[in-house]
């Protein structure tokens, strides 16, 4: 080997450097959060709820559990809007009004709370858009126990995953809090992960269908959406989860 072109060895980025560069990148690409009070004034509270996830993605951070590599389903973007780098956001979801219409666009059967109507329809993927492959559904509900967001999507998580998340959520859990409370309870024979964050609010998660195509269901009560949202007791939240579970969801 007598060549005169000698490249240096591969350099390492230390874990600290990598983390810092990642944070720098995310600070640039994540839309700045518009305070809910301002957003509500601009859009009106009803529009805020009706727009649900679609609006949320354009103005707020996607909410994710950092532990165990878990993340919420992809959120849709708003037609005509532009992202923080000036890029055009492509709509990825459409609103339908019935469960049957939702089922026609999803790889699983949608299950909604009984005797409750979503405030802004049911958001489902547009065929051919990136979110279409895994399939996901979101719908927002107003109730005496606060406004909550229902999400359902294909997932390869298992009950063991939920337990892993429960263990991991004690540190760095949803909403950037570090003092969440977590528990896995059984509701109608189904394991439900309950995470309460002083920053985010309350999230319930469970898996149905342990076979080839499990579906994750999430119920989110966010403290800031709408502003000063009611966060229900665990019992009240689990009652809604139980209603969905008993219907096969």
């Amino acid at each position: 080997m007598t060549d005169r072109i000698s490249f240096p060895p591969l350099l390492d980025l230390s874990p600290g450097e990598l983390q810092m560069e990642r944070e720098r990148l995310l600070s640039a690409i994540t839309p700045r959060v518009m305070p809910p009070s301002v957003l509500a004034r601009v859009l009106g509270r009803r529009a805020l709820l009706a727009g649900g996830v679609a609006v949320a993605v354009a103005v707020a951070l996607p909410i994710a559990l950092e532990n165990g590599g878990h993340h919420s389903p992809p959120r849709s973007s708003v037609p005509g809007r532009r992202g923080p780098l000036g890029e055009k956001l492509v709509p990825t979801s459409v609103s339908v009004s019935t469960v049957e219409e939702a089922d026609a666009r999803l790889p699983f059967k949608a299950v909604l709370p009984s005797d409750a109507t979503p405030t802004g329809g049911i958001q489902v993927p547009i065929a051919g858009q990136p979110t279409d492959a895994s399939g996901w559904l979101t719908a927002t509900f107003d109730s005496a126990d606060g406004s909550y967001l229902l999400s359902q999507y294909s997932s390869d998580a298992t009950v063991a995953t939920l337990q892993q998340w429960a263990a991991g959520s004690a540190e760095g859990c949803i909403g950037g809090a570090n003092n969440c409370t977590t528990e896995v309870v059984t509701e109608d024979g189904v394991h439900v992960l309950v995470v309460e964050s002083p920053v985010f609010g309350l999230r319930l998660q469970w898996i149905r269908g342990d076979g080839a195509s499990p579906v994750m269901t999430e119920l989110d009560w966010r403290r800031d959406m709408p502003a000063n949202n009611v966060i229900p007791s665990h019992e009240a939240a689990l009652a809604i989860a139980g209603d969905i579970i008993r219907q096969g969801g």
Partner: protein
Amino acid sequence: MQASDADLWVRSRAGDADAFGLLFERHAKPIYNYCFRRIGDRESAREMLQVVFLEAWRRRNKELPPDKVLPWLYGIATNVLRNQRRSERRFAATLRRLPAAQVEPDFADSAAEHLDYERQAQTAMSRLRALPKREQDVFVLCVAMELPYDDAAFALGVPIGTVRSRLSSARARLRELDSASGHEQGDSTNVQEAHQP
């Protein structure tokens, strides 16, 4: 349970910044090294790393084959480096808003070592500048970064045969230059290139 690149890219395309952050963690090192080997300056390479991923995020509507996220990032990096000033202008405002990168202190030995590496990269690139730019791209991707030919072809948006012919041409040219300058004949690199089909 580690999400695949394809899954993370699908989520990134839908606007999931956390998924994109995971892709960054996974591929930052090769892209950083690619930038470093072409620029020869560690700090500039870190800025270019940001620019490459900002550009990838801006172009996240792109549909990618499942195993081509990294080759696509190499392609973006190649374009960003080729049009460095334009790319920096595009993201100037964004880069200004970024918190300053904290550089971890170098111990004396490691600082000297890094200077050596920078000199080594600069020397390598000064030799490669004798080649047409398109041959430089292929040479660094296939030889310095050991990218398979098909991935290099994807990164550069050219047929695989073009990658082979450009690499062959680059090697021939380097041999000629060696010969003209009185250097010994030999392989075109001291880096072991991965076996290619």
